[in-house]
């Protein structure tokens, strides 16, 4: 039973089109399921995994902009994170400078 629960958890990690709350609900209720239902659940999640791969494949083939849109969105998200950290470092550097300047002024 533990083995199959582990497999289901891994599958859920790969399924990107389920909402996080829904995945959480599955993980919470999974321990109460009997063995046959666990196998049934695994079977459906494998189907969902197949479905999502086919969906993305079809989208990429049909829409030339889809792939670029996703990559652009990823880079934008990465840049946003980098900016947040940059700003954070700048703010910290600025604070340190203020402390030093205050000390100099006090001398």
């Amino acid at each position, binding site marked *: 039973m533990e083995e*199959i629960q582990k497999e289901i958890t891994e599958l859920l*990690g*790969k399924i*990107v*089109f*389920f909402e*996080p709350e*829904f995945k959480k*609900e*599955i993980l919470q*209720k999974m321990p109460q*399921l009997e063995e*046959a*239902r666990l*196998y*049934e*659940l695994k*079977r*459906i*999640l*494998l*189907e*969902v995994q197949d*479905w*999502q*791969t086919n*969906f*993305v*494949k079809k989208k*990429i*083939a049909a829409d030339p902009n889809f*792939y*670029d849109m*996703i*990559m*652009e*969105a*990823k*880079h934008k*998200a990465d840049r946003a994170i980098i900016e947040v950290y940059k700003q954070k470092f700048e703010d910290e550097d600025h604070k340190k400078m203020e402390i030093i300047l205050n000390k100099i002024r006090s001398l």
Partner: protein
Amino acid sequence: MGKDDKELEKVNLDTESSNNPEADQNAARTERVLQVLKEDSNILGDYIQNDAEAKRELGVYQQEVRGILEGSKEKIDAEIVDRAQRDIYFADEVEKMAKGEEFNAPALAGVLERRMWGSFFNNLKKGDTVISFLVPGADFLSIKNLNDKIFGPQITNRIIEQKRIVLEQKIKEVDPNASLARSDYNIEVIQTSKDPAVYNKQLEKVMTEVDREITKFIEVIIDKLIEKERESLEPFIIKRAEHQFIDKNAKKSNDELIKKYEDNINKWDQFKQELLGTLNGKPTKGGFRMNYGLAVVEGNEAKDQLLALNHSLQTSRVAREKRGEIYGAEYSENKNLQEVENIKNLRDEIIKSGNKITDLDGNEFTIFLPVPVEGATNRYTLDRDLLRDVRKGKFKIVDKSLLEKVVLYIKRLNILDAVKPFIYAETKTVGENIERFHELAEKIKNQELSDEDRQKAADILRSDEKAPEYTSKSEFHKRAAAMEDAVYVSMDVLDLGVDLLLEYESALQDVENAPSDKKLEKFNEVSLVAGDETTKKLREFRKEVVRVYKEEFGLGDGLVVGEVGGDELTLAIDIKDLMKGEVDEKQKEEKLNKLLFALKKATNTRVIKTVVSETEKHVSNESDQHGRVEAHLKAIKRAEAGASIAKDLEEAARKLTRLLNRLGKEAVTEKLDGLREVFMIEGNEVKSNFVIMDNDGGFKIANGDDGEFNYNSIKKDLDAILGKKEY
């Protein structure tokens, strides 16, 4: 695109060598996108929400998962829930239109145009060609078998959809201007302005390709199902082999699971063999052999359009019953008349061979009963009880050769099987209505609706096509699912299929008895009105239900909330409306009892018999829409299960009547046992008067004399009478 992504693509391309660089690139990109979405699914944003098809498919999977998590024994297929939700969405769009809000114009206009076969009648002109395609007649390929036993609704819908797509695609390769006038599982109708000679040899080739593609499509589905089932089965087989059980119960559960999986595998394997024509090692034709019939429209009137449709259908039916090498043909007057002659000859052959058939219980039936008609030559009618049992595959006999002839005779009667949702006498009115629907549809598309138009269109779309006093299917789901406390009443008209076939049989004998030079004219005349008498009976039934609902019980306000099927009708009644506000449990039971028996009495006439069953639904006002829809569908499903029990009881009454006539009253009294309160002997008949009611998850049978008893308490006796064991 960043440098890393290009590098990753290159790596993937290097590791997966193939002759198709574009496919390799797509595969690599797919993996990359999935990896990105795994890290941050928010990137996808509203992409899925805006893709209706993807949203729907994903929704179906989510419902399946929910069904497993909730562990409900009463499972409603996710596809059915999904369909009901789409119906409710449609009904909501009608409401938006009525209120003057923005709405889904193409969806509403499309439904209006197709109403009453509108798109067919509007576009057909003199000289156009109509081609009808019939789904294979083999019982194992019937939609009931695929839906209920083999695949379930989700996969069955995929097959129906694929059949339509492939057929349309192949036809358009021959004639790009052909259009699909009508499509459901059993029949597709294509119309085209092309000369039928263009299609001559090409249609056989088209049908061969469709046969091959759909057979392959189904075969692949079966192989995948079997493969997945074997994967699911494997751990339990291993457990059994390694004796990994805590106790006997655990072993028993494991064995039961193994049996469940193996039964499924065997079922699909057998189905596949039947499909491929390799069952039992005796090769047969196999395949998904659709038949076709082609006819030309001879004039511009509705009668000409209907005749062309009838001719194309008749031709395809004759091709289906022939089971020859060819898939179909062009309509031929001579072939139709020859078929009428064939039906007569088959009847004469059966009569000459003795005209008797005996079932395994020892009941002897006269197959064809003479019908005394003034001034006519001999006319006959099939024994009703025999016809009923043979139709349902319930007639058991040792020597099957005679039974096969009777089966063939019955199938051939379907040459007159009509598809129009109105009676012939109404053709002119229907034509005017179709014009009206078309005009409103155009106004919707062009956004030219006045306030009056909006209400007219909404009223039309909210009402059922066949029975406008009732809600349409989408409106039914919307209103019924919204009821917190509701009673569902399922009513079935018995023997409608039997009545229809007897009507066809009588009509065909009218043709047989016509003078030779008038036979064709008579055939066309009967084919235009075929089925009308049965339609009138159905309308009478529905009218009586409305009368009881509105006049006797003062229910509803406007449309009757009901789902109108062929011979079934399901009502949803708000309990507050039934009780006029106050709900005392005892009074509610009494009122319900009165309503059910009133419905039964009103609709059980000399010409129609019905069965009535009821279930209840209670949902909290905090339930989400998905929960409400599921509760609603479960209540319908249970009401239908109740109707099924009622039909079993009716069948038992018929069997007891036969026993009564064969062996006398004592033999019947002996068999009645726990069923004495349900059945009574009146003259040479065993009769019954009961309704089936909800009983906290089970069912009880209420007879007309205030007697009630649990279904489970009589099930064993009932099964015994129904021939589940011989007596």
